């Protein structure tokens, strides 16, 4: 399976991290995400689980998780985005299931998804200020009256 993917996308796949028989992480080029996701979804019949964004020290990271139930494998595609250009193509053209999670990542991390039909807020309230992204590591409390358990 991995060899097949590697042969299919020789340029796009940067590195492969084989965590075991059930979990594989592939780092891919951010420009190739729609192409790769389209291939695994349509040709390999994978189910899109969700996407997780992670705020790294120097760059932002998005993981797109897919499950291939037939062979009991979770495939995660990792893309890195520089913090100066948080833009990536939307996967909504490939499957509708990406709509919500891209809206969520957009409001929580400030990553822009090009081609999303409705890139509005999903979870944050209307009075939440613009350009304040709560899941970023450098988030600072903006509301002096708020009582939020940050757990620390």
């Amino acid at each position: 399976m991995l060899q097949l993917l590697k042969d299919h996308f020789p340029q796009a796949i940067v590195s492969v991290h084989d965590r075991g028989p059930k979990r594989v992480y592939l780092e891919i080029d951010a420009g190739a995400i729609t192409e790769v996701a389209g291939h695994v979804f349509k040709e390999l019949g994978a189910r899109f689980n969700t996407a997780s964004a992670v705020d790294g020290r120097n760059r932002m990271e998005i993981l797109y998780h897919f499950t291939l139930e037939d062979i009991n494998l979770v495939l995660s595609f990792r893309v890195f985005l520089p913090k100066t250009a948080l833009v990536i193509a939307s996967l909504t053209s490939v499957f509708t299931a990406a709509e919500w999670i891209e809206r969520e990542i957009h409001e929580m991390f400030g990553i822009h998804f090009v081609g999303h039909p409705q890139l509005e807020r999903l979870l944050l309230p209307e009075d939440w200020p613009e350009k304040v992204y709560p899941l970023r590591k450098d988030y600072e409390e903006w509301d002096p009256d708020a009582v939020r358990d940050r757990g620390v």
Partner: protein
Amino acid sequence: MTRTIVPIGPYHPLQEEPEFFTLTVEGETVVDIDLKLGYNHRGIEKLSEGKVYDQAIFVVERVCGICSTSHPFAYTQALEDLASVEAPPRARFIRTIIAEGERIHSHLLWLGLAGHFLGYNTVFMWSWKLREEILDVMEILSGNRNNYAMFKVGGVRRDIQSEDIPEVLRKIDSIVPTLEKLRKAIMEDPVLHARTKGIGVLSREAAVDYCAVGPTARASGVARDIRKHCSYGAYEEISWQMIVAHNGDVFDKLLVRIKELFESINIIRACLSGLPDGEIDCRVTDIPPGEGIGHIEAPRGECFHYVRSDGTNRPVRHKIRAPTYMNLPTYKSTVVGETISDAAIILAAIDPCYCCTERIAVLDDKGQKLHSGKQLLDLSRQKTEQLRARFGV
């Protein structure tokens, strides 16, 4: 024809995921639907980043009150994946028993509410009465009727005592005849068929496109069940059947859940009789740097957790995705084109928790209130009554 906006929602304290629907209707027919979420967004992902791994289990247990085992299960699964350990066999069996008990009570809860929406309050009373027995079983096994606190990384917190097993089996066996009676009553009722068959159809293609999970997907012929395909717990070691239906309407969603109830009872029986001896905890002392994914089949579908660790005692990132997150957007494909009296049961069919329906208000374009939630529920019941009269029942 003039279009009317029907707002449904936004929230109710009991609801697991509060949402606000805007139905656009032409006369009786729904032509568009939009959703707004986040009324009860508690920032648990951020909260978990500040908790040590053991504390976070209790936090995720409180993501949802009904499927309170699913999140700790997926979370411990993710941490075990991260630390490359596996829980001992006895712990895996106990986890399976708890997870299936939860599935039974969750499905019974849904079944009762579906009956309630359709004006079948007897179904409501019966299934909630049966649910009490299951909650008693959960109390015997875990000490709690809900929020069981049974899970820890590497095993479970509490063992099942062998002297409790006969009582558990007796209670589980006692609900089977009533459940069977209930199943027959529901499956053979012509009015219920008329109310649910061909209503709110989610096609197989749409289910794949929306990546729907759980009973919602399986009712549309998508044969995917994490328990079957992605071996975890004790599901590989006992024999059980995955339930799949093909029409994708409300009736098939009902059918899948009812059949799963019987299957879950069989799984619990098989687990209790084959409960292996030994440790219940493999004592994980620390979580190495790295990343882990855990996913399990919750009553409503796949529950997915991703954890990133940097070697400290708190996660760098903890992503939680509940099953309803994938199932809710399918409303776009199921409600449009149906009548407003069917909207309540279609919205309820994916089991999103019922409470928004109680808060339905129909407004005209000047914002005048036309129907209260009660009136809309009455609309749904009236339709059942009309059908009853037509069928002569």
